[in-house]
Structures are given as C-alpha cells and as structure tokens.
C-alpha cells in the first residue's frame, strides 16, 4: 500500500468522503453510521424529554389538572418506551461504540459493515413504527406492556409500539453480533485481550447480552401481539390472558429475562467510557484492570439470573424470590469493584479538571447512589413496600440517567474532538456538567423519599401529602432540562465554529488518538502494531491534558 507523504490537511477524512444524502444513507463506514445513529437518537431523546416535561408539569399538583388521565398514561408510556428502546439501549453502543471500537483495536471497520448499516435501517423502521403509534394516539400500557392489560384490555396502538420495539431489538442484535465478531477477529497485531481498552471489554459484555437476551424479548412481544391480534376473533390464542387459558405472570418472567439484562446494556458501555476518561485525566492506568474487565463479564452473566427480583409481589414462589434476592445482592459486587477501582485510579494521579472528567466523576457519584439503592430493592421485605412506588422510579433514573446518560455525555465530550476535529468551549462544558448534576439530584432524590412514603408510580393524581416532594422534583427537572439544552447548543455551534484540534488534544493513550481528527475513511494508513498495555500513562511526567492544545500531538 502506498501512502501519500504530502501532509494535506483534512486529507480524505470520513466526513468529507461524501456530502450527498445518498453518500450518508448508503455508507458502510462505521463512523458515518455512528453519526446517523447520533442524529436519530438525539431526536428520540427530545421526543422522550418532551413527554417527561409534561409529566413533571402534571405532577406539580395532586389533582390531575393539566392533562387527562388518558393523556397522562400515554405520556409516561411514550417517555419510557422511547427513552429505553430508542435512546438508552442504542445510545453509547451504536454511536460511540460503533465509532470507536474499530479505531481502538486498530481495525479499518467493523467485521460486517453492511450489517451495521442494516442495523440502522432496522432501528429507523422501528422508530417509524413507534412514531406511527404516537400519531395514532399513543400507547397506554406502560413501557413494560404487562399482560393481560396490553394483550386484551388496552384500546391503544399497542401493536404498533411493540412491533417498533421488536425491530429496534433486531438492530441491537445486529450491532452485538458485529461487535463480537470484530473484537474476536480484527484486533491489530499485539492487541491481546488484556491490552484491550476497558471500553472495548464493556462493549464485548454488552454485546453478549444483546445477542443472548434480545431474542427473548422479541418473541415475548410477538406472543403478546399474537394474543392481542386474535382476541376478538373466534380463534383466540391464550398465552398470557387467564380468561382464555394463559398465564399473565409468564409474560413478566419472559419480559424481565431480557429487560433486566437490558439495564446492563445501558450501563456497561457507560462504565467503559468512565474507565477511559478517569485514566486519561488522572494520567494513570486504571487500577485493577483485570478486575474491572472481569467485572463487566461477571455483570453480563449474573445479570441473566436476577430477573425475578422484579416479581417479589407478583405471586411468585417465596423460595424463588429468595434465590433471586441473593443473586441480586451478588450482582452488586462487580459494580462495587468498578467504583472502588475508579476511585483508586485517581490516587497519586495527575488530575486535570475537564468536562469529560466532571461527567465521569458525576457518573461515579450518581451510579453509587443508584447501585446502593438497588440493594434496598433486592432486600425482600423492603421491596414488598417500595415495589411500584417512586422509590423504584428514583432508583432506575439514578442508574439510567445519572449513570448511563452521564456516561454518554462524558463520552461524547471526550471523543467529540476526535469525531468532529473541533473543540467545544470548556467553560460552557463545565457549567452544564455541574448544572445537570445539580438538576438531576434535585429531580430524583426527593422521589426516594416520596416512594418510601408510599406514592405509587404511574399515578395521574395523587394524595396531597406528597405534593412538596413532587414540586421539588419538578423544580429539579426544569434545571435538568435546561442543563441538557446547553450541550446540544454548544456542541452544534462547535461543529462550525469550534477551534480545530489535532489528532490527540487530550494527550491520551489509545489507538484512536493516533489517527487524525476526524479520522480518515479507513482509520489508519497502516495497520498499527501494539507494543504496550492499555493506559500506559505515567503520572510522574508533566504534560497537558487540558484539551486546549490546538494542533495537538500527532504521535505519542
């Protein structure tokens, strides 16, 4: 292979490889597909966010006075289904994972570039079905689609939304297959398994869950749709509705067999992001690398054995509940290992405060609260009381928003100069990271209290003694909402006006920083050869990690 020796600026980078709509819609470049996903999930994030806004406005007063009960039920279903199936599950894997995994392991692309593009089309087809469901008046089952309400009683666009989630599920299976094949077969020479960045390990574990878990929810939703489709005909098919011979709890077992591991699909990639950021901005290798890598796999495996903790009051056998309870306590251990090891990584490091680091530290704090309150829910006698209350709502928002979204934003800010070749304003970055952290806590911490006091979730109108805490929550949500608008605005601005950066503005290790920013279409001119472990930083060397180095380093 001949390489041009003339240093042309922006030489055939992936962004300028084509500017027509066709060049984007038919691209097989993993980086361009990542951007297709980025734009799509951002749109869905704002759809889900708009629903959340209306929910919080309604809950400012105990009476159901802003929207009708019917509209409220459709809003929280819309919020949950869109945020989970169309934002959180694809968020990091399909954008940052898609963009970075080949770069991090020194490959030209993913193993199956066309499958990668197909995954985006499946995702969009699913998204369009979800939008159709919304336009047809929405869905009122909750994102969990519990039977027999969803399969027999609901008069809403359940089938459309379930089919949308089904197609989105296929896109995530495709992504998982692609990542597993790529990580197994396309690592550069010298990139052994234990030299892989922890971001890649986290995505490997995530992919296993996607491939093994998603088919189960696919068939479950399909069975629900089958029962629903024939419910008013002479050939009823009883699967979940006991009136026609089905079992409603069977649905919950099948649904949570996927949907509990799905929580780890959302959080594991964020954990990978945090490992990268913490290590870079403390200029130290991640403490206990093998433990952090192994804990990702442990979470993926144990995550498949705890689904019954969603069903402690469902009528499930008491002894089954005890087994699920103890396993749920054990799944907390690998998460605790990660938190301890990230914290230890900062010790004797060379710390630079940057926007990504603030998000990463915010992640650790919020994930710690989310994880520890998970132990409350794993405790049988406590869960009986707080199940289906706002305590659960607070807990999973700490994991999915405080954890997954903070990690996503941290990762976006960390790799934004790599993706776009431009830097965003640091002051605005730090300001909005702090704003989001404060707004988040004010929104969701009161919900732990109101949940323990007994306020059930999915209530359009509630008892007046819960109002003060709900007003606090709504006040926090308005800060949080504003906090999300800032990065959206300045990142867009930086696309056109941000100062240009070189290959490695943070002075980071990792193969993705050895290629240009933005990278060329095939990532590397020559296949890199890896000769050192991941995160080979030395905190004793004084260097600059502030990200303001225009031009940056071109080699390490």
């Amino acid at each position: 292979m001949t390489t041009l020796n003339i240093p042309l600026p922006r030489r055939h980078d992936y962004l300028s490889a084509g500017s027509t709509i066709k060049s984007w819609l038919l691209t097989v470049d993993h980086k361009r597909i990542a951007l297709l996903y980025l734009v799509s999930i951002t749109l869905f994030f704002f759809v889900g966010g708009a629903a959340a806004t209306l929910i919080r406005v309604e809950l400012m007063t105990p009476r159901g006075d802003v929207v009708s009960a019917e509209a409220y039920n459709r809003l929280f279903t819309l919020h949950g289904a869109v945020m989970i199936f169309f934002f959180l599950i694809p968020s990091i894997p399909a954008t940052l994972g898609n963009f970075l995994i080949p770069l991090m392991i020194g490959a030209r692309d993913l193993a199956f570039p066309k499958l990668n593009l197909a995954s985006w089309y499946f995702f969009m087809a699913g998204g369009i079905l979800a939008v159709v469901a919304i336009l047809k008046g929405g869905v009122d089952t909750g994102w969990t689609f519990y039977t027999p309400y969803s399969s027999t009683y609901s008069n809403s666009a359940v089938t459309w939304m379930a089919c949308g989630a089904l197609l989105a599920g296929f896109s995530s299976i495709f992504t998982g297959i692609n990542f597993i094949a790529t990580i197994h077969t396309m690592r550069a020479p010298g990139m052994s398994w234990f030299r892989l960045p922890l971001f890649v390990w986290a995505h490997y574990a995530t992919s296993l869950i996607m491939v093994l878990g998603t088919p189960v929810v696919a068939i479950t939703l399909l069975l629900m749709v089958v029962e629903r489709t024939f419910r008013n005909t002479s050939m009823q098919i009883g699967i979940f509705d006991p009136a026609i011979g089905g079992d409603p709890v069977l649905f919950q077992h099948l649904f949570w067999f996927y949907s509990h591991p799905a929580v780890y699909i959302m959080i594991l990639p964020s954990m990978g992001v945090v490992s990268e950021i913490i290590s870079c901005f403390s200029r130290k290798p991640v403490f206990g690398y093998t433990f952090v890598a192994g804990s990702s796999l442990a979470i993926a495996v144990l995550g498949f054995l705890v689904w019954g903790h969603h069903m402690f009051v469902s009528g499930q056998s008491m002894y089954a509940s005890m087994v699920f309870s103890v396993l749920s306590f054990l799944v907390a251990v690998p998460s605790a290992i990660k938190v301890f090891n990230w914290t230890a990584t900062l010790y004797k490091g060379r710390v630079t405060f940057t926007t990504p680091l603030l998000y990463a530290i915010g992640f650790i704090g919020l994930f710690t609260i989310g994880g520890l309150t998970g132990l409350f829910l794993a405790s049988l006698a406590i869960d009986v009381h707080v199940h289906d209350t706002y305590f659960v709502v607070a807990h999973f928002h700490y994991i999915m928003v405080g954890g997954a979204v903070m990690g996503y934003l941290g990762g976006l800010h960390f790799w934004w100069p790599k993706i776009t070749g431009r830097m965003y304003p640091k002051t605005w970055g730090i300001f909005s990271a702090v704003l989001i952290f404060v707004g988040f806590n004010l929104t969701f911490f009161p919900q732990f209290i109101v949940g323990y006091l007994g306020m059930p979730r999915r209530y359009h109108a509630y008892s007046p003694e819960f109002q003060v805490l709900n007003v606090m929550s709504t006040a926090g949500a308005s800060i949080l909402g504003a906090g999300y608008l800032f990065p959206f605005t300045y990142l867009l601005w930086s696309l056109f006006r941000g100062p240009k950066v070189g290959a490695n503005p943070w002075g980071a290790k990792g193969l993705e920083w050895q290629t240009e920013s933005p990278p060329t279409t095939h990532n590397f001119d020559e296949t890199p050869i890896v000769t050192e472990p991941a995160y080979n930083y030395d905190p004793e060397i004084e260097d600059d990690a502030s990200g303001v180095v225009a031009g940056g380093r071109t080699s390490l």
Partner: protein
Amino acid sequence: MWDFPLFPKQGSSFASQVDAIYAALWLTSGFFMVLIATLLVVFAIRFHHSQKRDRKLAEHKTALLEAVLIGGPTLIALGIFFWAAAVFFHTQQAPDDAMEVYVVAKQWMWKVQHPGGQREINALHLPVGRAVKLTMTSQDVIHSFYVPAFRVKQDVLPGRYTTLWFQPTEVGEYHLFCAEYCGLEHSRMIGKIVVMSPSDYEAWLGPGGAGPLGEAGTLSSAGGQVFAHLACNNCHVADSALRAPRLQGLFGSQVKLASGQTVIADEGYIRESVLDPNAKIVAGYPSPSLMPTFKSQISEDQLIELIEYIKLLSAAGMVGDERQPPAPGVELTPAPTPANREESNQP
C-alpha cells in the same frame, strides 16, 4: 412546611421491622456514599496537576486489596439479605387464627367481602390487633393491593388467588392504593383501611354480626344457594363418595390425585376444580372428569361464596355434622347488579 416525614405511619406489626432494615440500609449506604464522594473529591484536589506531590506508585499488593474490596461488600450484602429475607419469610406465612377477608379487584375498584356477609367498596373495616388474611383475585387485569402504613403489597391476579396477611396495631384510617398499573383510572383505584377498636368494630358489624349493610346472610349461606342452584348436590352427596369426592372434611385436607401427586385442598384448589375439573383428578375417579366446567356460569363473587360454603361443610364434616349446612334446594335469586348492591353497601 418543615414537618417533613421520612417514614409513613406505622400501622401494622411489620412496619417497624421493615423500617429498621430501611434505616440500616441508609446508614450502610450513606457510609459508602460519603466515603466514595470524599475520596473522589480529596484525590481529585490533592493530586491535581498543579500540586507538587509524590506520584511514585508503591508496589501495591493489588490482589490483597481487591480481595478486601470484593469480600467486604459481599459479606455486608449477605448480612442484609438474610435480615430482609427473614422478615419477608414471616410476612408470607399467615397465622392459622387470622380472620379471613376476600377481595375482588376490578377496573377500578376494590370489592371486599367479609365472611359474615358484609360487603364494602374501596374500604376495609378491621379490628385493631387481629391478624387478617386477605384472599384476593381480579376480574380483569393485574392489580396490586398496597397499604403503605402496613408495609404490605401483593399483586392481585386474574385467574387465581393470591393472599396477603398483616396485623393492624394502631386505630386509624390508612391509604389503600392500587400499585400495579391497570389502565385509565389506575390512580383513582384507591380506598381506605379503617382500623377500629374491638368495640367499634362490633358496632360496625351490626347486631348479631348481620352487618350494617342490611344484607342478611353470611358468605357461606349464599354459597349454599349457589351450590344448590348449580346442582352440585346431584353428585356431591353428603354421605357418598360414589359419583364425586366427599366435600365434608375436604377443606385444608390432603388430597391424593390420580397422577400420584398430593395437594392441599385450599381456596385455589377448589377454585380450579370448579372452573377446570380436569386439571386435578382425585385418585379413584375417572379421567376425564364427569364434572362439567362451571367457568361461564359462576362469578368470582359466587366462587368465594361457594368456597366459604365448602369450608363450612368441611368444618361440619369434622365435628360430626353437628352444624347443618343451610338446606340446599333454595332457588338462587338473580344476584343484584354490582351497582345497586354496592351502592347500598356504602357506609
């Protein structure tokens, strides 16, 4: 404004036990939250790049440290697991002397039936200090019976019975919420639990326990009418097990099935046997069963009445038929529609 409760009222014997675990969890979690937050902030400031520090890494005993970091949380987690599981185990075992109340949930109301015949909607009156066992089912979707002050919750499922027990310890009125999303008026499927002093409760029950609701007749006597109306006595004859198993002495006993299994004849077993006679054939009887299904002929309310009648038969059978069940043969009058029956029941 600053009267800011962190715990709901404690209205049952479980409440303080659950709150103790909850407080211990917050103390443990709070310790780790503060520890992690402090270390993050201290390390980040102390080792900020502007600070001149010794950054030379000592040879860490990583494996030992990791073992402590893994072992410590595991032991704490297991300790909490056992504590919470022990309390849970207790909440799942209703005492034998608990008074029984039946609950039928439907979109969007709670129907309560006391064995004495009293019926209530979205309310449950109970005496303080007595253990209560609820046997619950749903006529449509899944609901969940939740009383925050008692720290109890149990999903109420269509097609089967679930049970819940608790012992109210304080006189007062408490929230009853539906905790499982059940459709349009889910947030209005609420009611009140009224815990009364024993004397107030007796007064509420009415003279002779006939109920304040003007409706004479216990659940079991209504069940006797259902029994006759459905002609159950054609086969389930009092002194013969020829055509069908004897019902005297049945409830709570062990039943040997044709499959070789043994089951306990509880509410769920009777319910299933009425609706799906082939599900469990008693040993010695032909398969398929001679009994037709009564699925489309009997409501959830009538099933409960029938179960109470069979309980009465069983009790009668055990003490040598001293207590005669109400004479069968009375024509069952059409049940009042839920609306007028329930309105008349409002206290």
